[in-house]
């Protein structure tokens, strides 16, 4: 019997849409260390199958780990245990002729929004040498946050890919924001 279930019908639409947009991976839900490991090795294997250049593969891997860890570190925040912030988000990897795109989306509050915006704008304004300088300066003088981050993720992404980070904040009714981050890695 043919199903009238709209969920089933929308699967093909979604499939077509993914193909059209070049999305090879879409995930919505909790991001934890296990997910991070699984996705990164899956993507790496996938790139191996299409004989992607080794240095491109490594850069995509790098960006994916940093993005996923950005999302999952929110899960460890004790103040945000039981809210929609708990390390959940959306994660997309896309590929077109010229580049890979790693896109993540997760909820942040106003304070986080300002901090993120400031930090990305600053990183985006620096050239390669200045980025390198800042990276090693922070490495030398900084320390790990309680969540185990080194505060180097954004710098590293721009430094390794040579592309500025694109971002967008969607304002939500409760005064929070949905933070979308996109990093691009050129193919050779």
């Amino acid at each position: 019997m043919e199903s009238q279930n709209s969920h089933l019908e929308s699967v093909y639409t979604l499939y077509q849409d993914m193909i059209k947009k070049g999305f090879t991976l879409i995930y919505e839900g909790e991001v934890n260390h296990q997910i991070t490991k699984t996705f990164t090795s899956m993507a790496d294997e996938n790139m191996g199958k299409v004989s992607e250049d080794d240095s491109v593969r490594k850069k995509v891997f790098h960006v994916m780990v940093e993005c996923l860890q950005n999302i999952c570190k929110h899960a460890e925040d004790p103040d945000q245990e039981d809210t929609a912030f708990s390390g959940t988000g959306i994660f997309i990897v896309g590929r077109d002729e010229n580049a890979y795109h790693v896109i993540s989306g997760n909820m942040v509050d106003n304070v986080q929004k300002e901090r993120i915006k400031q930090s990305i704008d600053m990183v985006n304004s620096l050239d390669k040498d200045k980025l390198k300088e800042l990276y090693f300066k922070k490495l030398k003088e900084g320390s790990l946050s309680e969540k185990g981050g080194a505060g180097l993720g954004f710098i590293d992404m721009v430094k390794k890919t040579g592309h500025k980070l694109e971002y967008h904040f969607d304002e939500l009714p409760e005064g929070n924001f949905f933070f979308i981050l996109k990093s691009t890695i050129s193919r050779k």
Partner: protein
Amino acid sequence: MDALKLKGSEDTPAVILDAASNIFELSGKSMPENVAAFYGPILAWIDEYGKKPNSETVVSFKLEYFNTASSKMIMDIMSKFEDISNKGNKVKMKWFYLEVDEDMLEAGEGYSEIVEVPFEMISY
């Protein structure tokens, strides 16, 4: 002192810290779930070793991949060996990188600029 040996995994590096055999090496991938917990015992071992180091210490880093949080821990490891060097002991770093991996070479060069011990860059 007892050697510290850890088998590598898909997200943690293989570690050999063996004063008796004079082997000090980190290799593989590093993106542990909890960097502080993984690197804590390693840093503690180096502190202990620093009390009575060998006359010559060569530390090898043969890493395929490390995340930014691990890069901070690698910095801390190097700083501890730098302290040992500052006390008048011979310390040298060997930084291995895949020939095609420019980012890994660049990382090694960056470390060599801030850690004041001799570095050797070795491609493989």
